[in-house]
């Protein structure tokens, strides 16, 4: 870590100038947080049982703050990488609008607050899973895997899969098969989602020296592997229906959405385009993958509420 901090080509923060509050908000990656909050909310709404609206709001707030804390700690550690990529070089740390200790303190404080409130207001199991998800994202993904292996986002994808599990556990106090399947769904969804992105911003990752699959193994291998992950993802997405965990509303929606996902991934899998500017199929897959997750989880909530 010392080496990383020593070699980081980051702008020197304006001496003594305090960071804007907007920069602290930017540290939490609000756009990424919306997906996390949505999956957490869906896990909470799909869970059997009743939760007081105030406690439900608190659970979602803690999930959001936990995700924000993990994002802040990720940016604290990766400031040197962010400075090398066009997509991230305007973040508060690489742009020199904030000092690194401030980001670290903010991230640790936010994480501790989110976990303590979750434990006191909801239950210990939900708080424990929240701790695991934050530590997994920061230590396993950011510190350990991201700079070392092209499987970084495959294993690291687990961190983004926890919110639905946390939302469910906040209501029930225990883990069931359906939230585990939702966890698996997000886990298997992550590789095609990220690899579609990495295909058309490959030069960014390459310049930063991040060993993404597209950088290390090339576009062809990345396309094939994205397809290989999309197949089990579709099976896991549809499985809750035949297993009797959901009704036909979710089952039909998941089947149709997964079919389109598979179609787009197949198009990417067999594409031979090498110029990022011409990678329309990859951009379509990336955009659709976000819609897919929102729509699948939305269908689950509608189904569970309809048949409750």
């Amino acid at each position: 870590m010392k080496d990383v901090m020593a070699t980081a080509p980051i702008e020197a923060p304006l001496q003594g100038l305090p960071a804007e509050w907007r920069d602290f908000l930017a540290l939490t990656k609000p756009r990424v947080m919306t997906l996390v909050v949505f999956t957490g909310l869906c896990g909470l709404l799909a869970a059997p049982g009743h939760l007081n609206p105030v406690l439900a709001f608190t659970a979602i707030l803690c999930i959001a703050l936990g995700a924000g804390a993990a994002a802040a700690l990720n940016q604290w550690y990766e400031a040197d990488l962010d400075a090398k990529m066009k997509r991230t070089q305007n973040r508060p740390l690489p742009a020199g609008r904030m000092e690194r200790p401030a980001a670290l303190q903010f991230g640790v404080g936010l994480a501790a607050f989110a976990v303590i409130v979750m434990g006191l207001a909801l239950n210990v199991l939900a708080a424990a899973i929240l701790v695991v998800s934050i530590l997994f994202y920061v230590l396993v993904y950011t510190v350990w895997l991201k700079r070392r292996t092209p499987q970084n986002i495959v294993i690291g994808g687990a961190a983004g899969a926890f919110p639905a599990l946390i939302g469910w556990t906040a209501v029930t106090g225990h883990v069931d098969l359906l939230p585990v399947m939702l966890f698996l769904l997000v886990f298997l969804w992550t590789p095609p989602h990220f690899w579609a992105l990495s295909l058309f911003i490959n030069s960014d990752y390459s310049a930063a020296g991040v060993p993404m699959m597209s950088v290390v193994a090339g576009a062809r291998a990345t396309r094939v592997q994205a397809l290989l992950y999309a197949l089990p993802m579709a099976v896991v997405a549809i499985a809750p229906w035949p297993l009797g965990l959901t009704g036909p509303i979710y089952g039909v929606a998941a089947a149709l959405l997964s079919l389109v996902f598979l179609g787009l991934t197949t198009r990417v899998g067999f594409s031979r385009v090498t110029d990022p500017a011409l990678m329309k199929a990859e951009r379509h897959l990336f955009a659709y993958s976000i819609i897919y997750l929102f729509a699948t989880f939305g269908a689950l909530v509608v189904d569970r509420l309809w048949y409750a």
Partner: protein
Amino acid sequence: MPRHDPLPGTPTPADPPVRPPFDQDEIRRRQRARSIVTALILFALVALFYAISIAKML
């Protein structure tokens, strides 16, 4: 508090560097904005903890 700037030509190394006026204004503006946001967040948290306490009693 009256401010005692060093006389021209006699800088003292121990003194902090004198900032240009824009810098001072910008610092004050940012500190004020951060204080307001912090106050709003603290107020929201007090309200939330009060609501949680009541919800846990129900």
